């Protein structure tokens, strides 16, 4: 009977071009879906719609000039990307920065992480269909952006880190603003749970969807919150602590379920952790220099250098091969989003279009980061 049915009821597979202009692809990502009805058989991707070849551009820039290019990679964690390059150069030249610099960098990192996660939360709701969350997310993000703008001079492409320290000292309002933000966000974060996390429709949309096992997550090179949703412990802040992360107390959030909802929970919990880091540091910003004296022309000794940081999306890495010149010989930006995206096909097999949108949301891609 079943054979008869499958013989008679033939369905035709077809292709659907999702993107480059599509609301769910968060920019200009093109997905080629092979569909059977609404069920996804295969996801193929086409990237490069905003490829700027930043790696090649870095080969003609000095180390100081590279930093501002990293703003344009993952624009939602630009501060963390800046820091990666600065840390790499400081490590290579054995520049020891002051405690003040370390603490400020850590605080900025965490503010960046919160602002990125808050934006992700808003957009996540929007992808699932709850349009209101977007504005609620932006309310918090706006406060952080104001903090950034006042201290760093820009809201998104902060470019605040320089080799050997920071561009400016903290603005006098910084501490007050951060304290205000902590107070505000502590009140609003439970609302996120009430509005979205516990919502029965939302949970049904995410639970059990986009499963990826721990082994697969490692094999596909997943990182950041996406991998931690599968129970992989991969927080660079814990594994290879940098800046002031070795002196603050925070937990690495992992959930073993491996589905979209686990990834969602990881990010929500990470916001709580970031908030606690901020609380620990805000009253203890040490006095000191905000910038260490460096040479005017920075040349890295010949060799290979690698610096990894935990950006909002995961394991961001900078690899530099230097030949002793003032320009790097080869720079590689290891993009967390690119690695996460490679597992998309695996995650979305046999699911529906609506699920693909949810998965894309939970792996939290930023297309400039993928295209580089």
């Amino acid at each position, binding site marked *: 009977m079943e054979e008869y049915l499958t013989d008679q009821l033939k369905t035709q597979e077809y292709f659907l071009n999702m993107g480059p202009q599509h609301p*769910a692809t968060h920019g200009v990502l093109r997905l080629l879906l092979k569909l059977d009805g609404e069920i996804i058989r295969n996801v193929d991707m086409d990237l490069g719609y905003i490829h700027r070849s930043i790696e090649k551009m870095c080969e003609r820039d000095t180390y100081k000039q590279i930093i501002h290019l990293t703003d344009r990679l993952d624009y939602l964690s630009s501060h963390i990307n800046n820091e990666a390059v600065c840390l790499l150069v400081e490590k290579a030249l054995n520049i020891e920065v002051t405690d003040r610099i370390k603490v400020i960098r850590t605080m900025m990192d965490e503010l960046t992480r919160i602002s990125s996660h808050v934006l992700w939360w808003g957009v996540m709701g929007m992808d*699932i269909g709850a*349009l209101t969350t977007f504005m609620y997310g932006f309310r918090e993000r706006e406060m952080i952006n104001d903090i950034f703008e006042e201290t760093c001079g820009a809201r998104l492409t902060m470019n605040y880190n320089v080799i050997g320290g920071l561009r400016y000292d903290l603005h006098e309002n910084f501490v007050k603003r951060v304290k205000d933000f902590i107070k505000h966000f502590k009140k609003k974060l439970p609302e996120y749970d009430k509005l*979205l996390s516990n919502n029965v*429709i939302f949970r049904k949309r995410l639970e059990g969807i986009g499963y990826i096992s721990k082994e697969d997550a490692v094999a596909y090179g997943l990182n950041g919150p996406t991998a931690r949703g599968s129970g992989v412990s991969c927080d660079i802040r814990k594994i290879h602590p940098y800046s002031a992360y070795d002196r603050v107390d925070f937990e690495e959030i992992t959930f073993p379920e491996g589905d979209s909802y686990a990834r969602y929970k990881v990010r929500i919990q990470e916001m709580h952790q970031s908030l606690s880091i901020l609380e620990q540091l805000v009253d203890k910003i040490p006095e000191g220099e905000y910038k260490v004296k460096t040479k005017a022309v920075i040349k890295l000794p010949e060799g290979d250098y690698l610096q990894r940081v935990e950006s909002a999306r995961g394991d961001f890495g900078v690899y530099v091969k230097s030949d002793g010149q003032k320009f790097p010989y080869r720079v590689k930006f290891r993009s967390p989003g690119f690695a996460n995206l490679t597992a998309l096909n695996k995650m979305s097999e046999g699911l529906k279009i*609506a699920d693909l949108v949810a998965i894309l949301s939970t792996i939290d891609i930023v297309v400039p980061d993928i295209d580089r």
Partner: protein
Amino acid sequence: MILNIFTDIHNKLLEHMSGGAAHITELILIAAAYLGIFAILGLLLVWLERRVAGFFQLRLGPNRVGPFGLFQTIADALKLVSKELTGTVKADSMLYRTAPYFVITTALMALSLIPFSHEIQAFDINIGVFFLISVSSVGVLGIFLAGWASNNKYSLIGGMRTGIQMISYELSVGMAIVTMTVLAGTLQISEIIEIQKDGWLIWKGHIPAIIAFMIFMIAGTAESNRTPFDLVEAESELGAGFHTEYSGMNFAYYFLAEFVNMFIIASVAVILFFGGWLSPFGITDTIPFAGLFWFTVKVIGVIFIFMWFRWTFPRFRIDQLLTLEWKYLLPVNMVNIVLMALIVWLGLTL
């Protein structure tokens, strides 16, 4: 006292011309009036939606054009009118062009049944509620055809989703209405309202009526393709769904019809559960046209709940949509009808 302005007009016309001519003039007059109501309703509701959405989302909404931004939607409509009508090359052009008219025609037909007050009801047929359900199920065709004829895969998926969704939720809407007609004992809309003079049906039918109301609200949201049931045009998945390929006025037809449909669903809820144009406790029932005020207030109340849903909830997935209907709403509905019948039979109504 005026009984019904439409009968008045009919009689006035008969005084001046012969029967046939009077009839045709009356038809044209009323049709024009209802087209006007359709447009005004649509535009007002779009404005209301945007304004309400603004407040939900910590914004202000349109507030620049006219007082409270009231003319914003008119400006938008003018813009849409002036826009080019585009289409896909290989679209089935006949169906593609006619599809929007299915939607507005049915919306208009359903609108003619709505009693705005005691005096304003164009078409009071004795199978009113039944007519309303059957007419509104034709409207689906317009959406379905749009999805099919556009020759766009996103539209097609949207159209197919409509088919599934409408067939399923039509049931729940119908059953919820049946539950209430068991209580009311009539299908004629004016009579249903008349019965409620000594108490609204949601009060009279207490438990089963409240359950029926909840089901009606859920299914009604689905009927009007609104979040959380807006899979048909789910913008994060399908771009715009069935009307991806429509532009200019053709798009505006769908857009307005969607809001008018919401108005119709809300009106039906008000008629069946909250006594239509009746004032609470009969305080203003003797004043002519006071019903219009109460009807509007009640309908806006129900519409606000629809909007509240829309700006709070995430969207369902297609299989969850069907699960909700066939596994939850339908069985509950079945039991509810029996319960209602028992209550009416045993005389337990309040």
